């Protein structure tokens, strides 16, 4: 399951030289890679702007915001749990930051910190409730999803009298915080959003944790067989709560990027996004039942999303078609992943 370049120390004579094709097929993200390539080629041929630097900057940015969340959600799913509150959390964190900075006049950095503490608290509460009650996380986080949605609208309307918080630009520390979360950088005369770097960074860290650390090993184990893991001394409860907190952290990151980029936030933002995260993770090779998947795969799943969403715009089609594409893509991904996984298991025999 690891990506190692070195050959095992004592090769077994019964193992033929592993064929490159077989090695590739074992990876959970292979289906997503093929899909991404297909979508990329398709829109490169059909539209003109898609392949341009400016086009790439647009669909990469679209993918990055989704990708950060998809990667975190993928880790949680590998650990065997769902988080339906993830989408709304991106709005909640942005609202907390915005309300503190605009209404209380807090420094943006301080507001961000409080917002982070809030996010981690909600994540921990989600995890604790799931572990404590033993209920499916689907139900528990559906509850926190609705609760947060109500809070977002209720509190915002109570404080500002509208369902929108704006005026971030006047807050102290907006410039410096904005540089970290919402600035742009130039490649070939085109501006790319810094969120793309956050996305890549988050994916690299998540993938390293999953594949190269003890905690990563535990994530796969608790998702695959929680009871067996507990029996050999894996701290199941602590690990799962940490995963919920990771998702909440990612939601804070995306929320912060949003609020600092647009300087305003709608209270009803983020609703429905939670399914996009799960879809991206599944396209990337995550099993709904847990114990199998990949962070890189989820990032690629998000890339497919971004490319298709912007590609459809470039092609001049109605964006209604995006939903159709999404459904077909999801079904195809599940079927391909299922087939490849079975094939992978046969290859290993």
């Amino acid at each position, binding site marked *: 399951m690891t990506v190692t370049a070195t050959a095992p120390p*004592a090769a077994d004579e019964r193992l033929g030289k592993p064929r490159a094709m077989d090695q590739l097929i074992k990876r959970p993200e292979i289906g997503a890679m093929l899909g991404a390539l297909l979508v990329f080629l398709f829109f490169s041929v059909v539209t003109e702007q898609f392949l341009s630097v400016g086009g790439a900057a647009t669909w990469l940015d679209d993918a990055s915001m989704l990708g950060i969340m998809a990667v975190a959600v993928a880790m949680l799913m590998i650990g065997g749990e769902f988080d339906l509150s993830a989408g709304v959390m991106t709005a909640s964190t942005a609202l907390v930051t915005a309300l503190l900075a605009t209404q209380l006049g807090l420094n943006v950095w301080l507001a961000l910190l409080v917002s982070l503490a809030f996010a981690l608290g909600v994540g921990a509460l989600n995890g604790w409730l799931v572990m404590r009650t033993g209920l499916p996380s689907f139900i528990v986080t559906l509850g926190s999803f609705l609760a947060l949605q109500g809070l977002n609208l209720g509190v915002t309307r109570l404080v500002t009298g509208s369902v929108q918080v704006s005026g971030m630009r006047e807050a102290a520390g907006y410039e410096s915080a904005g540089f970290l979360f919402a600035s742009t950088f130039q490649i070939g005369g085109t501006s790319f959003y810094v969120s793309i770097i956050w996305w890549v960074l988050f994916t690299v860290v998540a993938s390293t944790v999953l594949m190269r650390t003890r905690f990563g090993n535990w994530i796969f184990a608790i998702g695959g067989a929680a009871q067996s893991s507990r029996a050999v001394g894996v701290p199941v409860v602590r690990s799962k709560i940490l995963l919920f907190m990771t998702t909440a952290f990612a939601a804070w990151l995306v929320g912060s990027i949003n609020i600092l980029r647009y300087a305003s936030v709608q209270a009803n933002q983020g609703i429905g996004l939670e399914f996009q995260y799960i879809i991206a993770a599944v396209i990337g090779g995550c099993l709904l039942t847990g114990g199998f998947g990949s962070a890189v795969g989820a990032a690629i799943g998000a890339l497919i999303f971004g490319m298709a969403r912007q590609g459809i715009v470039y092609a001049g089609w109605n964006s209604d078609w995006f939903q159709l594409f999404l459904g077909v893509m999801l079904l195809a991904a599940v079927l391909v992943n299922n087939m490849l996984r079975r094939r992978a298991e046969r290859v290993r025999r």
Partner: protein
Amino acid sequence: MTSLIETENIGKTYGSVIALSEVSTVVNAGEVTCVLGDNGAGKSTLIKILAGVHQHDQGSFRVEGEEIKFSSPREALDHGIATVYQDLAVVPLMSVWRNFFLGSEPTTRFGFLDSKKGKAVTKKALSDMGIDLRDVEQPVGTLSGGERQCVAIARAVHFGAKVLILDEPTAALGVKQAGVVLKYVAQARDRGLGVVLITHNPHHAYPVGNRFLLLKRGRALGSYEKSEIDINELTRQMAGGAELEALEHELRGVEA
């Protein structure tokens, strides 16, 4: 030499239900103690006490001569008592070596997983037990039921277990697979571990066992050294002895 495990008139009640009563047995290093009995005989209760899942409330339970009452499976593990349960031995989707080291992963100086060492040690530990796997990177789910049990046994042996408790390791297996697992039970015994083998099949117990504890309705029906009993008698006692003979007569009567 003190025994690894010794129980004397041990008993356990769940409310008003007497699950186990006055059971005495010993487990010595390099020997296999078989616990036999039909469903509901109290086998599970006995091993759960030994494994630290439940606590006994009568009699005495000594580990290496020391009177003890475990409060958790972890504590039993710390005393060198490892339990391999039939159904929760391994994580199927994970590779053999990751399963082997689960909970005790080797790390490099920088805190990363040392997968190279992990694979090499797994391969060696398994082959020391006589388990010959082609590839420790394959998911455990691709192994047969017997091989999975073997990986779990090898893991317990590798991480320094002194006593190995095996809960029905052969129950779900075919004849040949069961034979393979019994071979590794013998391996563990020959390496000086004390083994507790729970089974309801006297034909699996007899070849590897040194001592046989028969349970029925929570009580010891008998405890025999191998020299005191032969396979036929063991089977007869297991099956309910006199009751079975009576049943046989009855059935003959029907035929006639």
